[in-house]
């Protein structure tokens, strides 16, 4: 597509979006949304944002998704993206940060968007660059099979040095299953020329990063859950919360941006200080959350819950523990409890939905179950098992992240809990994820719940720390904008919110009722 045509399409899209935009009023509060123009959103190909489009990102904009609309709020006003390092193709492969952090997908990227992009470009978009948009860089170009994990689960290949650099590892790593071929490859495999281990992970949303990067709670020179040394900000010398990436390998926004540019964007030269400053400044003023629901209507309205919607994210306090009845994780003040039946059918349906959301919140916050054998939650002084709630682990005010140093093993990548197809003579489903066997050293204590032999699809934090107890631990990520960015979990193993809830139900034997599951999905969908 020529540059001129790109710009024309871009402006066409902007006009469509502006119809639905909720603009910031003079005093900074949000006006009520205009009626949605569904035809403007029915074609996902119109939502794609390519690097170098040079169109402005409005101060406030909403994008449609499966459940309603997610709002993005730039508190510094309209972002001029022309020349902005987040939005330009900085790398040799044509990618920009925006390639995997799409505004329409709450600044992450959904599998649906990826599939649409493949269809629209016949797989030629820089998103599908061999470096990590393929299952392995040596796969045949132009073949969707070469990009199977990106297309099916939205997973980007993350290649890490094996063994880790400057770390004494407490375990051996073997490749048990290698459906992508990359971990046994003579060049890219763990015993190949590059000595890399390839794991496959979802891009995290680049919204509300003021919360994600906050070090105001639970941060000290030594990591709260393990006692190991915390990462330090090279600019300030202060310890960091290490809560940004799935394996906490980069702990500042600038480190993440620099390493993403060097790796995912394949830049020739590292980003400059000015570029890093611009990216950080943009990310720290950008907020996002679900703003409108197809059934529930506008979610952030006068007199409604104080913790819902993009403006609430902009107004909220970061680094605050919310697993308590003084701050709450997601403040709702019971505003959607016991609503009137409604004068019209639409109103009745809307109120019933909002009541379901409220019940889902209450379930998340108050409904106890036994949390058992979860590394870095049952091992931090609470006991195994503990009778607690979802909010115990997802306790950070406004985001539902863990409060600090939040990697733990909830079973999303470690067997026996990770999603695996059944092994039987009649099974047709083939495993798609790699499987590693971890053998922990016998001169050290074993993993407290999995022993000395662990099977995992992704060793997670252990690939950085070298610790046996970190195998399969993944940093908990924020709950905002979930509706815009399926699939879920770091390995994309939950295709939708219902599967996410079902995973926890199985993992912790919670035995949710059908109504509880529906309520939880409704609650998660409006965050």
């Amino acid at each position, binding site marked *: 597509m020529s540059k001129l045509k790109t710009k024309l399409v871009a402006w066409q899209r902007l006009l469509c979006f502006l119809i639905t935009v909720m603009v910031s009023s003079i005093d900074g509060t949000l006006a009520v949304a205009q009626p949605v123009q569904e035809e403007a959103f029915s074609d996902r190909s119109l939502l794609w944002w390519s690097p170098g489009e040079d169109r402005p990102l409005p101060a406030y904009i909403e994008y449609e998704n499966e459940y309603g609309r997610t709002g993005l709020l730039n508190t510094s006003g309209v972002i001029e993206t022309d020349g902005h390092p987040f939005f330009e193709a900085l790398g040799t492969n044509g990618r920009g940060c925006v390639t995997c952090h799409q505004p329409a997908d709450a600044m992450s990227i959904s599998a649906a968007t990826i599939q649409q992009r493949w269809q629209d470009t016949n797989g030629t978009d820089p998103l599908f660059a061999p470096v990590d948009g393929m299952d392995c860089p040596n796969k045949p170009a132009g073949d969707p099979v070469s990009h199977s994990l990106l297309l099916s689960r939205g997973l980007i290949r993350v290649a890490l040095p094996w063994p880790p650099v400057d770390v004494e590892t407490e375990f051996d790593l073997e490749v048990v299953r290698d459906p992508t071929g990359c971990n046994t490859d003579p060049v890219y495999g763990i015993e190949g020329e590059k000595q890399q281990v390839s794991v496959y992970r979802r891009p995290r949303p680049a919204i509300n990063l003021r919360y994600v990067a906050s070090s105001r709670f639970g941060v000290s020179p030594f990591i709260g859950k393990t*006692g190991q040394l915390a990462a330090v900000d090279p600019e300030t010398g202060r310890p960091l919360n290490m809560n940004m990436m799935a394996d906490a390998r980069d702990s500042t926004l600038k480190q993440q941006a620099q390493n993403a540019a060097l790796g995912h964007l394949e830049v020739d030269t590292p980003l400059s200080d000015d570029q890093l400053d611009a990216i950080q400044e943009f990310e720290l003023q950008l907020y996002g959350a679900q703003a409108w629901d197809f059934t529930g209507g506008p979610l952030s309205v006068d007199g409604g819950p104080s913790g819902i919607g993009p403006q609430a994210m902009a107004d909220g306090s970061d680094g605050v523990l919310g697993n308590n009845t003084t701050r709450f994780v997601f403040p709702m003040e019971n505003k959607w409890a016991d609503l009137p039946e409604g004068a019209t059918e639409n109103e009745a349906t809307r109120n019933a939905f909002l009541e379901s959301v409220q019940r889902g919140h209450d379930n998340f916050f108050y409904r106890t179950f036994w949390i058992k054998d979860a590394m870095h939650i049952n091992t931090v002084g609470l006991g195994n098992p503990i009778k607690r709630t979802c909010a115990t682990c997802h306790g950070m005010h406004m985001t539902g992240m863990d409060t600090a140093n939040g990697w733990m093993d909830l079973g999303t990548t470690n067997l026996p809990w990770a999603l695996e197809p059944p092994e039987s003579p009649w099974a047709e489903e083939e495993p798609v994820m790699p499987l590693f066997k971890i053998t922990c050293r016998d001169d050290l204590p074993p993993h407290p719940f999995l022993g000395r032999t662990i099977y995992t699809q992704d060793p997670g934090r252990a690939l950085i720390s070298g610790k046996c107890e970190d195998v399969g631990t993944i940093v908990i990520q924020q709950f905002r904008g979930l509706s815009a960015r399926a699939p879920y979990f770091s390995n994309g193993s939950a295709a939708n919110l219902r599967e996410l809830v079902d995973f926890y139900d199985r993992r912790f034997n919670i035995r949710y009722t059908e109504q509880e599951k529906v309520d939880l999905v409704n609650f998660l969908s409006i965050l």
Partner: protein
Amino acid sequence: MNLISKTFMSLAVASVANTLLAAPAPGERISFVSCPIVRDTATVPCWLSEYEGDSYYLTIQSDVSASVQPPLLGHQVLVEGIVTDAPAICGGIVLDEVRLTAMPELDANCNTMLPADDRYIIDFNPRPPGPSAGRLAFDPPPGGSKEEPPPPEGPQEFDIYFDFDKGISFRHPRLLSEILTIAEKLQPSRLVVTGVRGAHLLSDGTLLREAPNTGRRRAEEVAGLLRDAGIAVQGEVNWIDAVADGVDDWQSRRVTVRLLP
């Protein structure tokens, strides 16, 4: 009552009497390794362990600020404490100065979860099983203080205590940070770290020792962490094996850090 019933009754009485006789007296120290048991209640769960026919109350679930933190199902627990005559809690004999540590190896037999039972009520829980009231169960945490300590003078010594066979863990960030802060003020010229391989004399006479390399592993880990955190002074790392006497043996699982001006 027929003969069989009388015999059964006599045996039962004798059994109860033996159990009563075997139960340690208040004030007696007790130390044993056994499976922990978790009992649900209408509020927070309580933790028990059985030894020689008696059930001992260990602790309740609260939060990270508790001085006695619950053990782990899936592992045996090493219990140390002093028997009291306090009213039973959750059906268990109450121990004073109780110390718990999970044994490192997995034990699939340790999997007992008992349902809530109206006879056992926990009405002193400082923290409900769900969200808190906005404060830790114990504030400040036991052993902690909000008061600013006086400026350090002369050699400073710190004991860091460990779980059985374990190295640095969640128990240690507070103390390690305190050592770091004092070192910044003291500006020591030397750091001496001594790791101890712990030993326990159990009530049944068994001598329980930690893994052979534990003292060294702990000492090197602590010295390395303090050095990497900024105490970049001449260091000395030692390790020794402890001797157990059955009294506060948990203190033998330690590292002693000395900051010398």
